[in-house]
């Protein structure tokens, strides 16, 4: 039972080709998930692979290395469209968890309550999956297939997350609702990215978490909000039509399904107003 700390992708891929290790980086989900007495045969620690950590600008957008921590996100110089992601980063567990936990780990853990997923979905994130066969990119909304289920085959690992270019005038915000101030799994959360021209919304992206097995964008609501006046958001009727139809919340210890559906309107209103304020 080895513990592997490769320093380049090829070493990692070659090990993955012939073994089935548990891939770890920040380990903030790995350790709590261990049952009493459970020991994994092999651990592949990807945190020291060159190029795996940090946010970089590419020709077409941004690249977030798979071992980038939430604190790295907070400290990175990024345009206002990433404010939602930064705010989510500050709501991930505690400072300790933010210093250790990684963006890619948050995705791969595939919890319905993953704090990073709504803002990344709103950003139109793609996941870069690599293996000795090469690499492929898959939309984040397709990569997370369900609760604890992701589109990752044996031999593959997540290498990076890519965010396509987004206009510099886009602004964003994130709102997390929990039963205490910190260190809390959300009851519901919402991320919004907007563009405002002449006081009206010209682009709206809203993603909600903890209200469906996988966080969801709300295209119906986004369409309804197009061209809405920013000043009118306070009175906008979020309950109309089937804006929240994609949501399928459950009742659990954190809140009832009914409650979740009830509060998402107000959360969307607040996060949109906050996002517009950033503009």
């Amino acid at each position: 039972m080895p513990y592997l700390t490769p320093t380049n992708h090829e070493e990692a891929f070659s090990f993955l080709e012939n073994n089935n290790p548990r891939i770890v980086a920040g380990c903030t989900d790995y350790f709590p998930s261990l049952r009493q007495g459970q020991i994994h045969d092999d651990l592949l620690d990807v945190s020291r692979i060159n190029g795996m950590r940090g946010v970089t600008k590419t020709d077409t957008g941004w690249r977030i290395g798979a071992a980038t921590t939430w604190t790295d996100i907070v400290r990175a110089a990024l345009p206002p469209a990433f404010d939602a992601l930064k705010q989510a980063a500050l709501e991930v567990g505690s400072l300790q968890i933010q210093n250790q936990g990684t963006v890619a780990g948050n995705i791969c853990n595939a919890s319905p309550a993953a704090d990073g997923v709504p803002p990344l979905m709103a950003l139109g994130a793609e996941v870069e999956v690599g293996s000795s066969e090469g690499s492929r990119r898959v939309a984040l909304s397709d990569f997370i297939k369900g609760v604890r289920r992701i589109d990752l085959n044996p031999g593959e690992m997540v290498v990076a997350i890519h965010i396509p270019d987004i206009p510099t005038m886009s602004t964003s915000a994130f709102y997390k609702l929990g039963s205490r101030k910190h260190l809390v799994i959300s009851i519901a959360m919402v991320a919004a990215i907007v563009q405002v021209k002449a006081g009206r919304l010209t682009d709206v992206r809203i993603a909600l978490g903890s209200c469906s097995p996988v966080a969801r964008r709300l295209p119906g609501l986004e369409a309804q909000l197009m061209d809405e006046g920013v000043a009118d958001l306070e009175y906008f009727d979020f309950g109309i039509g089937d804006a929240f139809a994609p949501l399928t919340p459950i009742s659990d210890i954190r809140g009832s399904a009914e409650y979740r559906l009830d509060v998402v309107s107000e959360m969307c209103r607040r996060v949109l107003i906050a996002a517009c304020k950033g503009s």
Partner: protein
Amino acid sequence: MDVENLEASIDFNLNGQIVQVAPVPGERLSETLRERLNTRDVKIGCNAGDCGACSVLVNGETICACLMPTQQAAGQKVETLAGLVKSDYHAKALIERFQDHGAAQCGICTPGMIVSTVALLRANPKPNEQQVKDALCGVLCRCTGYRKIIDAVLAVPASIDNSGGVGRALRRLDGIDKVTGVEVFGDDIAPAGTLEVRVVRSPYPRASFVFGDLDAWCEQITGMEAVLTVADIEGENCFGVIPEFADQPVFAEEVARFRGEAVAAVVGTPEVIRAFQPDDFPVTWTELESVANVAEAQAKGAPQLHPTRAENLMCRGIVRSGNAEAALAAADETVEGAFSSGFVEHGYIEPEAGFAEVVNGRVEIHACTQSPMMDLISMEIILGMNRSEIRIAPTGVGGGFGSKLDISIQPYLALGAIKTGRPVRITYSRTESMQSTTKRHPSEITLKIGAKKNGCLSGFSFFGDFNTGAYASWGPTVANRVPVHASGPYSIPDYTAVANGVHTNCPPAGAFRGFGVPQSGIAQECLFDDLADKIGIDPLEFRIINALGDGIPTVCGQVFEQGVGSKACLEALRPAWAKERKEADAFNAASTGSLRRGVGVAAGWYGCGNTSLPNPSTIKAGVRTDGTVVLHQGAMDIGQGSNTVISQIFATALGISATELDRIGGDTDVTPDAGKTSASRQTFVSGNAARLSGEDMRAKILRHVNVSDDATLAFGDGAITVSDNGKVHNIDLTIMQADDEGYAFVSRGTYDPPTKPLDENGQGIPYAQFGYAAQLAVIEVDEALGTTKPIKFVAAHDVGKAINPMLVEGQVQGGIAQGLGMALMEEYLPGRTENLHDYLIPTIGDIPPIETLIIEVPDGHGPYGAKGLGEHVLIPTAPALLNAIKYATGIRVHSVPVTPSKLRQAIKGREND
């Protein structure tokens, strides 16, 4: 590529030294630091990143060592508290400020707190309060309520007074060990490599079971040294804190009665125990029908937990005076309501842990406990050994709040050490601790109260069912205390209160700060507000009208001629009540959004010491021939401060400063029984014993040189210098005959509070003193989301005499934090919230400023007038919050916790009305 195989070693810089270790692949850094590098200032509270006790700095960043594989530390710089206090500028200053503010109570979270703070201050030497909260949000504290920690970090000036007598805000005498990480807690005593014990537990609320061939199973695993079962118990497989109700087995036999109940234990090397999976243990389970609550337990045909307790009724407590029914009928207005609360977990950050070994044929148990002598009595019965063959040597206690009164790990330690003949250790996982140790009783209460138009109470009828779980534990105490206290600190001539303790297949509900009174207080104090509204009297004035005072009988017919501080506490809140309501009204009038501010008050009282039963404490002291005064301080300090308070009282009685004392703890071999740390009795009962012991010592010394009582004493250099009336007498201790313990002078003081039994109507003298409290809470409700944000507390507490005002404030703030948790977020659901991320306790971000108003109405029985305080502090908190929520929203919530989901539903219901 680095491939770290089993024996591969890595280097890193630990506290300035390069260290080399060979961890198991995937070993947690916390374990490596503690077990391979003896860095035991790093504490483990949850092993899941939920509590932050294991926080260390890696390359200057705060991380949870329990979540980092040691391999990731290779080549890095790791700093722990032990290193920081030696070399770091900020840490050196922080350990002083933490002591000045009493920011460490039990001390188990303190390493994580200080380490996290150092990272903050290095980046930002002058943080504001919000920045402190953001930096420390990952470290949970269950004792302090965080406010003293915030003050210490922000370098708020402290009003410390280290002169050491009664009434002085003396630093904790045991504080330096806590803030430097030197304090030895339950898991800190065993040497690395010690055999470990792991308990095998029922996965079902009720199940029968049969073992396979245990010997053969044990035999085939190298390093598995023993399996412990009921067959290893030479005495009785039964324990309980109240002898008449003792019913709990060390190991369940044939049927397990709650999820998490022990049926066996294994003892093995650390490597074997690390890999031990309970599913591999040869036991076959058959799940049986179980009962989860009182209604199920009392339904026809429900499974009976104990054959002698029909309908699963463990016991019933009753108090009756006057004629409640007639008074209610004659009342001008009445209110009634049904209130409920769930299990509450104590949530101390130190899980149960300890070490045991057989020394010269005697079993020695070193473990965290609130009551060494009760542990000794239980172990005597279980082991079938004479008391003289057992030693209970308490370790530091990382929080208790009532749950560490009951034995937990002690039998497994003792049986393991006896069977293997080798030292053994055990530490419960967070989940084991939550599954198997006691909880606060869930309650279902119905209450009807009447009043006359003039505001005087007219009739009070209370009935409460308390889910006591599978075993009695302190359930009988809850059933008896609740009817005595359900009136609150008020005069209610016509009163009836009945409380049942009912068995279910849940974890045993036992002692938790307040013994059921916080639950009954919610019903009573909420309905008081409703009643005041109904008759049109200000809720605070309504309480003042009805408050108990000197010479007014309690519901038990007890009349205190002095010392009743109920009215003083309530009256102390008048200025804040007027100011805060005015501000809230203005806020609400101006609020255009969904925020509503509310202000609520509630009061409480609590009888100090055992209910109508003897509970003596003895405090012994000695003067060594070198002049050292040694205090045998057996009143377990679980963070509340008895090490300091008892010393202050003793020292004052003797006539020196508490800082001059040497202290010996509650080791049953050398220290007399100071009773249990429970029932808010230590300051009162052990404090009196300390006073008597100090007076006895002083009298013996004065008599030795035949001087007057005005003499002053000075100890040191093998002598006592006695100055009286201008004359100086020197007692040369070196020439005196010392006793076996090396003492030239020895003193003892024993105190047992004067009480009398309660008759069949609960009439009598249950306690020699009560303490009194009244609190005011200010909150904001976000009506659109159903969230409640506390923004301020004002707490008036009558402590008779504040022996140490700083520690009083610490108790008040910590109690309010627990009451806030109970009111707003905490509910233990067996099988669902068995960890600290699903079971939420308040974080540093949840506790608002708390203003403490210390009220001193001296009590004739208390040492220097002092009264107990520990439990009083959370009794008014939850009802004050509920009353504030009603003020803000108009909604009376009848159950806790008031989760956002629950409150929002009620708000929607109001809108639909």
